[in-house]
């Protein structure tokens, strides 16, 4: 449900860019939501679609990249890839993992109409 609030923040970032970069319509919005970002990409897409009418995001294609999460395993002293914070180490089965990546939640870039 917090995805609606995030969608409003995304719209705010895009509208600020519209003023700065002089565009009125977005063709493609490119986001990044890491596996551990606490965001459901489908819910975020739905929230953006609900918010878009009447804004510069109306009709825009929404692309959401979902980079994998990475963690440091204390037992095998190495970096591993995980898909959830509850995952054991895929290499040694250890459970003392510290997440090191995958929490990013960003607007990466836009393709905008030059009109």
């Amino acid at each position, binding site marked *: 449900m917090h995805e609606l609030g995030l969608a409003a923040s995304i719209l705010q970032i895009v509208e600020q860019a519209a003023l700065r970069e002089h565009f009125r319509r977005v063709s493609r919005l490119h986001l990044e939501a890491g596996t551990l970002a606490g965001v459901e990409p489908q819910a975020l897409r739905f929230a953006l679609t609900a918010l878009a009418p009447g804004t510069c995001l109306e009709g825009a294609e929404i692309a959401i990249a979902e980079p994998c999460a990475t963690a440091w395993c204390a037992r095998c002293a190495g970096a591993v890839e995980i898909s959830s914070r509850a995952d054991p180490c895929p290499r040694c089965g250890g459970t003392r993992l510290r997440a090191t990546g995958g929490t990013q939640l960003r607007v990466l870039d836009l393709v905008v109409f*030059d009109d």
Partner: protein
Amino acid sequence: MCVVCGCGGPSVPAGTNSGGVSARATRGAGGADGGVLHYGAGAARMSVPGISPTRAVQIEADILGENHRLARRNRAHFLAHGVTAFNLMSSPGSGKTTLLCASIEALKSRHPGLPLAVIEGDQQTSVDAERIRASGANAIQVNTGRGCHLDAQMVSDAFARLDLHAAAHQGESTEALLFIENVGNLVCPALWDLGEAAKVVVLSVTEGDDKPLKYPDMFAAAALMAINKVDLLPYVSFDVERCIAHARRVNPEIDVLLVSATRGDGMAAWLDWLVPGPIVFGGARP
């Protein structure tokens, strides 16, 4: 000479674009336009008459960036006022408000004169703020409407209205405690930094020992897990050790305390965790 625009080329019919390059094309390298008009540089690798050209705009912005900025401002504001803030989060009904009321009563006798205040977050009603005020602390109710969490702006607005804030400006104390009781929800509040010193997740034994694995983001964000309602342990199938193991699996550093806000179990350890040392009062010190 062209009679339309005055260039060196042959005449073109009026109304045709002859002098400039339309926005659909990009100029090639070399010379003024290198003799090349490239219509395939856009995203579609082609141009269609009547369809607007597009361009890419780099953004690279953190979606929660504005909240992070406000949270950093809150943190600096709290620090400047000697306020230690705790963000209490849990599912609805875990006993956050009861734990806060019991804590306020106990802190009043343990640290007399320590200013205490509560920011109460709920979707609707001011029932919780009234309960807190009845226990003797200043409280502000924040109703989020349909919102599922508190954000840094709400906390900033609420803090400005608290007596705690006014007292700090009048130099009455150098230390104070602020409890922020978040909206009952084990998912969304984990994402929003409010400027607190620490996040505390309250989990009651009636909810089940598997919650840390089911809602890992919340337990990963918290510095402390307070297992509440331990007086009910004989009546429910809640394995304390398993719950702690689950919590440490998503957050190896998480502190754990067992409490019963109604019966008083573990309250001394909980108060020690909140206020580890003696309180320093600006006005009370010689």
